[in-house]
């Protein structure tokens, strides 16, 4: 129960960041630079006097968009392809599975790097690239699960009762595979957060002043001697988010 409370608190914090921050995350206040942790700036201000908490909240909203888009793309397309492969069988199954295997061979980060290089790094382009890279593993998992369900006696029973193929997939197959697929998406969400942070950290011609957690670590790394707390906060935000996600979905892990 504690883990769901923690996840809800985190979700509220992340979503809140999309609508409200204590200060404008890009507002420069050169007089208040490096203010340290004070009552008005809870996590202090950076070298331009921007409020770190506001920037972390804005970055949290961008991260949330990435998590949702990655989950949605990988989950929908992957489940569709995997289920289709299992239901079709024969050469179409082989074709889909081979394509997915080749797709897995290219590392996720390279797919995302290429996409970011072409379309520029934004939460949307990165999430689409990360999500597309996640299609392969999702499809292979959906295929394995579907094959296992299709081998069960109740499928044979339904077939002999003359259930249509649409009814078979929607009433008998998907209800049995979707819960496990859903758990897998939850576990992938943590990976997506780290992958997006890595992309933002690497930079790739994106505007480094955008308040992404990874970009903040990159930007604040030069203050390691004088103001190390600046780079500690965004990293802590990443670690807490990923831990909360992993912890909440731990139960489902097969």
């Amino acid at each position, binding site marked *: 129960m504690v883990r769901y409370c923690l996840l809800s608190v985190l979700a509220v914090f992340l979503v809140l960041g999309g609508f409200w921050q204590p200060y404008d995350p890009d507002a420069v206040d050169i007089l208040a630079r490096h203010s340290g942790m004070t009552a008005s700036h809870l996590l202090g201000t950076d070298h331009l006097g921007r409020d770190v908490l506001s920037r972390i909240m804005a970055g949290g909203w961008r991260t949330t968009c990435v998590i949702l888009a990655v989950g949605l793309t990988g989950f929908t397309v992957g489940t569709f392809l995997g289920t289709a492969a299992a239901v079709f069988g024969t050469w179409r199954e082989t074709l889909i599975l081979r394509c997915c295997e080749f797709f897995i061979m*290219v*590392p996720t980060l*390279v797919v995302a790097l290429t996409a970011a290089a072409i379309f520029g790094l934004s939460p949307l382009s990165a999430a689409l690239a990360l999500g597309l890279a996640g299609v392969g593993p999702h499809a292979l998992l959906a295929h394995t699960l579907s094959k296992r369900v299709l081998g069960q006696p109740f499928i044979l029973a339904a077939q002999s009762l003359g259930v249509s193929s649409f009814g078979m997939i929607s009433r008998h197959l998907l209800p049995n595979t979707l819960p496990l697929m859903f758990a897998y998406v939850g576990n992938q969400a943590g990976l997506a957060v780290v992958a997006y942070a890595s992309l933002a950290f*690497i930079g*790739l011609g994106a505007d480094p002043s955008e308040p992404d957690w990874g970009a903040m670590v990159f930007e604040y790394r030069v203050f390691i001697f004088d103001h*190390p707390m600046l780079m500690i906060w965004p990293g802590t935000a990443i670690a807490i988010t990923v831990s909360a996600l992993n912890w909440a979905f731990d139960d489902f892990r097969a």
Partner: protein
Amino acid sequence: MHPVRLGIQSITGMLAISLASFTVINSMPADPVAIAIRVWNLPATDETVAALRAEWGLDQPLLFRYCDWLTRFLTGDWGRSFRTGEPVLGEFLERLPISLSLGMAGLALAIVFAIPLGFFAAAHPKGVADRFSRTLSVFVQAVPGFWLGLVLLWVLGVQLRWIRLLAQDWTAAVLPILLIALHSVAVLARVYRRDLMETATQPYFRTALAKGLSERQALWRHGRCGALYALLAAVRSEAGWVIGSTATMEILFGLPGISQFLVQSIAARDQMVLQAYVMVIVLWMLVMNGSAYLAMRFLDPRLA
């Protein structure tokens, strides 16, 4: 699976990926001719544009350009970088050793450490090694390597002054290699442990115990090869992760490897460099895949 079949599959995969990446990269919104004119300060007349387009074959259909690129690529002509004006192949050969040694050393170190860690975790469930490896795997999942590296630099370099920051000799590579290895150690040790634990439930393991072997001896003698097999299978997927960590480490520690070169080239929309990078990565994955497969085949004669 026969090695020849693996080879054919690898080559097909490489061709498919190269065609896909070539299509995607060449449909970039940025026009290379416009970039070249800007970068090289050429007069932006119609003649220059037409001459450049003809020289690079941009007026040809895509498939034709792909074939042309492929033959050039295979004969070692990887094109020229817009940004530096140097041949891409030379630029890569200069930087590849750094990236490769980072990745290979990290992976090798991970395998070396994962085997004893996984073994002791399996020999004493709930023991120190087991708890340590479990904590480690939770930790590395949540904490990104680049941030951990930065925190370590702060603690070891700034606070304790144990390491020199911005070192230019080989010591600069120690921390990145350790950080790259850390993630893989955690993953591989868990895989190694899980396979050994499965061995312990097998009837032949009970036979070995009945013969008078201690539990640890029996695990090592009868579980070692099977667990190594599982470990190698995991190395194949871990090889992809290593590339990502190598990229962030190159940026964090300022090591002039291929990922740093790529990031610098991206801003100039350097298509040739991007294409070459994708090919190098795919080649790395295929080589890792192939060597892991050969080692697995050596371990398990049933595959041969």
